[in-house]
């Protein structure tokens, strides 16, 4: 029994020994410039990205005779934002980071990232750069800020590296199984609905309670609702004649869109997949329980077990439209070599790299020239590239993420649950927007 304390003390000593036995050796050779890149690519993308980074290093050396090393670090997508926050606090931010397009604005307001147009080697105008990229993809990178003179000024805060939107996925097998019923309702089982009106009729037929099958399933956050709002012609904000910006989602078009979403759920054709604890649309679609969902190109591979088709978002009063998702690359203010970072961003979004990237991985290019050039055998991807043309990004409003999470998403949900009228739900959101968020645009001094 007397040995126990001895063992304990030995372990303690061992612990002390181990404490600093391993410290990360992170000193690169002196003549090599090292840039840290944080990325959230999946394993397959990561592999290609590694090749591209290596090619960039080579090219840069040939061009400038300077050795550059890109240190690629994979970060789990979920914890990226807090990680960036802490890294900034600790002065340990990376040089380049791949972030969701919705976050660029937040990072810009927090002065965490550099405006690329202020860098010495940015030898063109914002407008010129803008024209090189798919409009929906570059949009989230251009942010207007108030400068010290109180003037609004446009800045470019990042470059897109991946863009996407959602379109309508439909399960061909389920359509086939309900062939007779669809035909008797005057609907063609061989194609997807083209308008919302048609969509509702399809969905009704495809909802079969005894099989626990639903015609449709959706998320109901603002981003996922944008296909509805956009096709109904709703505007998020408008600028009045005197230049005053105000929220406009509660106008009639917005109300109609939300009422439509509500009707889908309350009439039972939508599965309620947005409710907590429910099987989400993707999973239900995979399991053959949801006949139609909205989803993006990221799921094309995952859905290979399903016999599905992709078509444009059904048209509403304002035609077809979608939302814009995707990732941008930004350069952190603390970077010691922002010009090299900019060089890499330009390289990665250049025509040739984008063509290679998108053809290998089956993605939508962000570079306009590549967009026209990418030949894809994948018919589904073609639909997305078509949909991209009508996609409308979400508005750029300071602290939009907070507004969404705190006000808009709950309001939409309450409306769909029937606890609020569409009118009231949207008015709440807009009131809050007008009162506490839009004024922030003018308060910020940079």
């Amino acid at each position, binding site marked *: 029994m007397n040995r126990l304390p001895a063992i304990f003390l030995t372990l303690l000593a061992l612990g002390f020994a181990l404490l600093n036995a391993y410290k990360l050796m992170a000193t690169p050779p002196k003549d090599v410039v090292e840039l840290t890149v944080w990325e959230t690519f999946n394993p397959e993308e990561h592999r290609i990205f590694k090749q591209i980074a290596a090619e960039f290093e080579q090219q840069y050396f040939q061009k400038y005779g300077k050795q550059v090393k890109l240190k690629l670090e994979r970060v789990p997508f979920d914890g990226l934002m807090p990680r960036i926050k802490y890294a900034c606090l600790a002065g340990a931010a990376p040089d380049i980071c791949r972030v969701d397009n919705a976050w660029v604005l937040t990072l810009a307001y927090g002065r965490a990232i550099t405006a690329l147009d202020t860098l010495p080697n940015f030898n063109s105008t914002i407008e010129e750069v803008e024209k090189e990229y798919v409009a929906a993809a570059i949009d989230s990178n251009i942010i207007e800020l108030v400068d010290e003179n109180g003037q609004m000024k446009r800045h470019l805060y990042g470059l897109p590296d991946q863009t996407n939107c959602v379109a309508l996925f439909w399960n061909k097998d389920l359509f086939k199984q309900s062939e007779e019923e669809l035909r008797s309702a005057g609907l063609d089982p061989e194609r997807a609905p083209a308008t919302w009106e048609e969509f509702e009729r399809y969905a009704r037929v495809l909802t079969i309670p005894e099989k626990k099958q639903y015609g449709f399933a959706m998320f109901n956050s603002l981003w996922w609702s944008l296909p509805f709002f956009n096709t109904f012609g709703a505007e998020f904000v408008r600028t009045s004649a005197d230049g005053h910006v105000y929220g406009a989602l509660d106008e009639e078009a917005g109300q109609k869109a939300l009422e439509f979403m509500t009707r889908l759920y309350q009439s039972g054709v939508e599965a309620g997949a947005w409710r907590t*604890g429910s099987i989400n649309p993707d999973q239900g679609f995979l399991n053959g329980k949801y006949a139609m969902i909205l989803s993006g190109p990221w799921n094309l591979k995952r859905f290979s077990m399903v016999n599905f088709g992709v078509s444009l978002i059904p048209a509403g009063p304002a035609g077809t439209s979608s939302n814009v998702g995707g990732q941008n690359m930004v350069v952190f203010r603390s970077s010691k070599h922002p010009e090299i970072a900019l060089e890499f961003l330009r390289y990665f979004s250049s025509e040739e790299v984008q063509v290679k990237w998108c053809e290998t991985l089956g993605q939508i290019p962000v570079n306009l020239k590549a967009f026209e050039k990418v030949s894809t055998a994948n018919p589904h991807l073609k639909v997305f590239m078509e949909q991209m043309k009508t996609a409308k990004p979400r508005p750029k409003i300071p602290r939009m993420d907070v507004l969404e999470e705190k006000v808009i998403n*709950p309001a939409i949900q309450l409306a769909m649950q029937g606890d609020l009228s569409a009118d009231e739900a949207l008015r709440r959101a807009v009131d809050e927007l007008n009162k506490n968020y839009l004024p922030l645009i003018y308060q910020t001094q940079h």
Partner: protein
Amino acid sequence: MKFDKVKLRESVVSYLFLAPFLTVFVVFLGYPALYSLYISFRTAPFSADWYNVFGSMQYVGLANYRELLADNRFWWSLFCTFIYGLVTIPSSIALGLGLAILLNNKLKGRNFFRTVFYLPNVLDLYVVGTIWVLMLSPNYGLVDVLLSKLHIHISGGLLGNPWTALPTIGLVVVLKGAGFGMILFLSAIQNIPESVYEAAEIDGATAWQKLRYITIPLVKPVILFMIITGTMNALNAFTEVYAMASTKYGYGGPFIKFGNESVGATSLSGLYLYLIFERGEYGKAAAFSYLLMIFALIISFINQRFLRTEK
């Protein structure tokens, strides 16, 4: 004050023993706690520099506290926490005590059962939570399938229905933690002398009376301990709600109307605090924490008052 030489010497020795603990405590808990108190009176402007958030904070007096006390969501989160505590604390006590009584019998394989009941305790709450989400999902989950066999239909599913979401999460947590309570009670019960039960038997007590008049009063310290730790767990509850009642697009589970606000039916104060914190409103988060601490102090004080055990 006259210093007692012996006590002085003992104090020196004591502080030597305490030195490692206190050093780490001061650096990593004491200082942060005081610093948090300091920033609870400050707030960062919306456009604070991310590289210097703390430096750009400005003194605002009690504004953070006032805002919270005037915030319906704050009170709602406390209410949720209260309900959550009301669900979890008594049921974990009952379950722990029940298991302990069953396993105090001289049964074959009781060690096996003890291990099995304790095992879920060592699992990560987040993992357990996500697994339960899968089992509870409406229409397709195991539990819902069983419920519909019994012709019980819950609109939106157990986790999607505002009325059932919080209790369900509570029960999952109780089930996971049952083993811990079991062991606490088991040890307390094993300390009760057999003769007390024999005396009760001679006095003609039924099994229920023995439980009511002997076991429960004698395990009261454990009950008190469980109430206090349960309260603290409820006040800090975050992972379970994060795992079971949050989507990527909203935290705190099915939303309901509360006055002029929409609030999550499972928006516990721990979760609400986390959201404020995640948004970078460190001043407000600090104020929140200190308000929670005050509540915790009051609750433990009341508990101790009412459940004080005679020694």
